[in-house]
């Protein structure tokens, strides 16, 4: 495995005079690492999840979702009854979903340390995390619009908007699947004695990956475990993902500190470049 660009810097001796040794300080030089911002991005996944649970799940009433079996009149009535809380919930979610994208960048930077120069899986992860934000934001915008416009729209249109949001947010899962797969593959290749991300998190990623597939059945059923409020496609699929995100976040945040220590050891110790294996 190639040594990565950061440890390549260890090959030229550092100039101690140019160093600011305060904790978290950005070192001068072309390959200085901003560990503090990196770590902050690592927390963004948790911010997204927590906010989403509160504002999409609880406030907008999606735990569990309003029935897919509801007819247009019932959907319109649901939105008439809960317009304000749905509007607030969806507005916040529309804004906060971008934190998932930011989180993806923190993860991919950790992955790059393991992948080395050919970091296409790190790129895939970053793209997966970024594009995951798109269907979520768009679905939230659709539901926000439905709540905002409920008095002007026919029940049929309300029903259509309701389903539009659910079909989009659920069936675009494969973008997230690519993100998860890239993460699991790279972190399972970590050859450190104590890997940056333990194998159980990677395997839980595969569980999450697998749990998304039955979502394909959502368009075809309105009741039972594969409806968008069903025991599988809602409870299991979201549950596995909502466990994976904090678990991975914990280790990614810790990894930044560990990598910082590795970089410091590489720069101070004997001028030897530290390889990632």
């Amino acid at each position, binding site marked *: 495995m190639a040594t990565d660009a950061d440890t390549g810097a260890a090959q030229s001796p550092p100039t101690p005079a140019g160093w600011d040794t305060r904790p978290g300080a950005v070192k001068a030089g072309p390959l200085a690492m901003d560990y503090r911002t990196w770590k902050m991005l690592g927390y963004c996944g948790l911010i997204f999840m927590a906010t989403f649970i509160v504002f999409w799940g609880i406030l907008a009433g999606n735990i569990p979702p309003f029935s897919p079996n509801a007819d247009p009149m019932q959907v319109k009535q649901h939105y008439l009854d809960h317009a304000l809380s749905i509007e607030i919930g969806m507005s916040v979610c529309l804004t906060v979903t971008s934190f998932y994208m930011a989180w993806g960048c923190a993860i991919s930077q950790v992955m790059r340390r393991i992948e080395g120069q050919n970091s296409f899986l790190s790129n895939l992860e970053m793209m997966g995390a970024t594009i995951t934000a798109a269907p979520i934001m768009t679905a939230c915008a659709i539901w926000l619009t439905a709540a905002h416009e409920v008095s002007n729209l026919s029940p049929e249109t309300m029903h259509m908007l309701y389903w539009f949001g659910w079909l989009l947010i659920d069936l675009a899962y494969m973008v997230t699947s690519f993100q998860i797969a890239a993460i699991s593959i790279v972190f399972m290749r970590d050859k450190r004695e104590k890997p940056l991300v333990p194998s159980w998190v*990677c395997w839980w990623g595969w569980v999450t990956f697998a749990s998304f597939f039955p979502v394909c059945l959502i368009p075809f059923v309105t009741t*039972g475990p594969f409806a968008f409020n069903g025991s599988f496609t809602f409870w299991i699929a979201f549950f596995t993902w909502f466990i994976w995100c904090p678990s991975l976040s914990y280790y990614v945040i810790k990894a930044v500190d560990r990598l910082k220590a590795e970089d410091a050891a590489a720069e101070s110790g004997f001028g030897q470049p530290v390889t990632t294996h």
Partner: protein
Amino acid sequence: MEGVWVFIGADMVIFCVLFQSFMQDRKKDPTLFEVSRHALNYNFGGVNTLILLTSSWFAALAVDAAKRNNLTEVPRYIAGAFACGLAFMISKAIEYTEKLDAGISVHTNDFFMWYFSLTGIHLLHVAVGNVLLTMVWLKARRSAFDSTHRAFLECVVSYWHMVDLLWIMLFPLLYLMR
């Protein structure tokens, strides 16, 4: 590789959630479920169980052969397990076609929604298992597995045993519960 147990454990819990969901729906209309069950052919189900049990047996023998450094036997047993997996898939295809020809589909009623969904998800697991067994077979033919190098072999075989045990529960749940 030890993390594969997390995957297996989680998959088994997920199926438990599905069993619970099924039983909950059955409780709402046991008569419908009982009547619909009669459209199923338990001979198919019983034979399928025997097929998967045999494939698990072959898979266990493959791991055993690797432990005893009997490198030539490993690919043969894996091929046996794969053949049984293939037979299961063909049998299921015949069974599904029979149902669809009789006008029974996932939309017919709740029982058949569950029948197709549960056996369908299980069938996907079998298909994935067959792909993994193929990978293992290709490696085994190049003598990749022996007493000290069998982690990947054992992972795939463990997954395959899980596929088997899930069917052991699914079969009576759908075909025999009266």
